């Protein structure tokens, strides 16, 4: 054992050092958000904000167009809640159908679902936009959240895989006790797939929180902007070179992502390693 110590030491220096290098940009962003806006690039090589200031956060929080950053956060949370409702309800129903029920055409529809996984959004983007504009849904969350109530192939697949690991004897026992198909879903399966639903919820949160293309297409008045749209606007208004406020609000939008990851790490890691979900 004593012989191996130096090798392990070297290993940790290498692997740990590399981790620091990799995360350096994020650390730099964090530290810079506490520097005075004019100093950020003058003292870019230093990791100590001198003087330390919270002014960037105060300025960034004021937002723009008369709407504070709090409004954008609130809008994004509403967006996330709708997406969560949509995905959790629809994907669990659909996955149960695919994993447990026997019906004509099951294989066909399952294959179709897997194919839609690989379909570029660009192919449907323009007609969808036209349809939603005909419906008068522009400048609202509807075009973004209504499709969520019809399932998402990634999560359906994840849940199907999970349900298949649950012993069928449980369903059969419930049938003998007189439960119908919906009761089996609701009382037997649903409580057992909570971990996979957690993974679904976490990734729905991430993808919704980061979604830029959807809001860019469908939301055009500032009072409806999400955080990613708001950051994009900060960037477009960069002329005044107020990097500080932009950095500060960037950090604000990253905090929930980190917090949720550290609380639910297990589900995130499992979700990725078992299905290849892209995080």
């Amino acid at each position: 054992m004593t012989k191996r110590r130096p090798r392990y030491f070297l290993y940790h220096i290498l692997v740990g050092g590399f981790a620091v290098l990799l995360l350096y940009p994020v650390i730099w962003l964090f530290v810079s958000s506490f520097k005075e806006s004019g100093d950020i690039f003058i003292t870019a090589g230093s990791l100590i904000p001198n003087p330390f200031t919270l002014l960037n956060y105060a300025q960034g929080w004021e937002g723009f167009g008369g709407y504070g950053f709090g409004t954008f956060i609130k809008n994004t949370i509403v967006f996330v809640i709708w997406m969560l409702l949509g995905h959790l309800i629809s994907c669990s129903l659909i996955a149960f159908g695919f994993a447990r029920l026997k019906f004509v055409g099951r294989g066909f529809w399952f294959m179709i679902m897997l194919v839609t996984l690989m379909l570029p959004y660009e192919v449907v983007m323009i007609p969808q936009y036209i349809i939603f504009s005909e419906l008068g849904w522009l400048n609202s969350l509807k075009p973004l959240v209504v499709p969520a109530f019809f399932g998402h192939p990634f999560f359906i697949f994840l849940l199907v895989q999970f349900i298949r690991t649950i012993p069928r004897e449980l369903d059969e026992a419930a049938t003998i006790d007189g439960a119908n198909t919906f009761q089996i879903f609701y009382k037997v399966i649903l409580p057992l797939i909570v971990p996979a639903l957690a993974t679904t919820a976490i990734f729905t949160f991430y993808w919704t929180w980061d979604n830029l293309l959807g809001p860019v297409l469908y939301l055009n008045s500032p009072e409806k902007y999400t955080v990613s749209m708001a950051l994009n606007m900060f960037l477009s208004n960069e002329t005044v070179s107020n990097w500080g406020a932009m950095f500060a609000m960037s950090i604000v939008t990253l905090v929930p992502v980190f917090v949720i990851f550290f609380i639910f790490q297990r589900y995130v890691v499992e979700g990725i390693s078992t299905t290849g979900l892209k995080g």
Partner: protein
Amino acid sequence: MSSRLRSNLWGYLFIGPFIIGFLAFTIIPMLASLYFSFTDYGLFDDPVWIGFENYIKMFTEDPRYINSLKVTIIYVFAGVPLRLAFALLVAMLLNVGSRAVGWYRTLYYLPSLIGGSVAVAIMWRNIFGDDGIVNIALKTMGIDSIRWFGEPTAALWMLIFLSIWQFGSSMLIFLAGLKSIPASFYEAASVDGANFFQKFFRITLPMLSPVLLFNIIMQTISAFMTFVPAFIISKGTGGPLDGTLLYSLYLFKQGFEYFNMGYASAMAWVMLVIVGILTGIIFLTSKYWVHYESEGK
């Protein structure tokens, strides 16, 4: 009601939302987009049938299109292999029985976790600025600083680096794959006197090949559709000199900035064909390099 009919009814009741959504948000829009691709269609007037004109124009009269195709191909074929190679290398480094590995795994995953956000694209834009930390690091190493936003190739590499930086999720998948390879395989190989490279090419790669296949397909497709970093880093322009005008960004601009909806639809269909061909090639060649464990048993 017969039990067969009843079970069919239940089945379609449960997957019904998927079928309705598929028709309303996928199939109908796809057919519409196919039709639009053969028309001249602005936002405010009705589509006019022009046959293959959009497709012909794309490849003969639109140098920006050819350029965006070129830029995207470089982005995909440099970015995806580098990212996967990197992910595999790190996964192998982390596949040791040390308690700290859990921590390293988390740290290496973080860039992937936040990588899709606007905040990170903004960060990337700034670390590559003229006075940013990348140039400071280059200077300390005695290399001339690079004007990343001044030159199309440099700007494109800035995007490729961003994609490599997010190797974390592939690394997690590979790590799970590596853990499932029985240690006895390596022990047997050691007994036979195999060296590290022989073990890597004869055991690790073949055992990992199904996972690798899946990753190559999904990442190639998603790399082709990359939008956010190019949009943010170039402030929506695709500049400098269209150097970061990735396919999706150009498509978006054609559709929603210049309102050439017909032309943008044609671009989308070419994209679909390219993605389809790529997936097909990867699938067809996979039998030569993907090893499934059940074979030969």
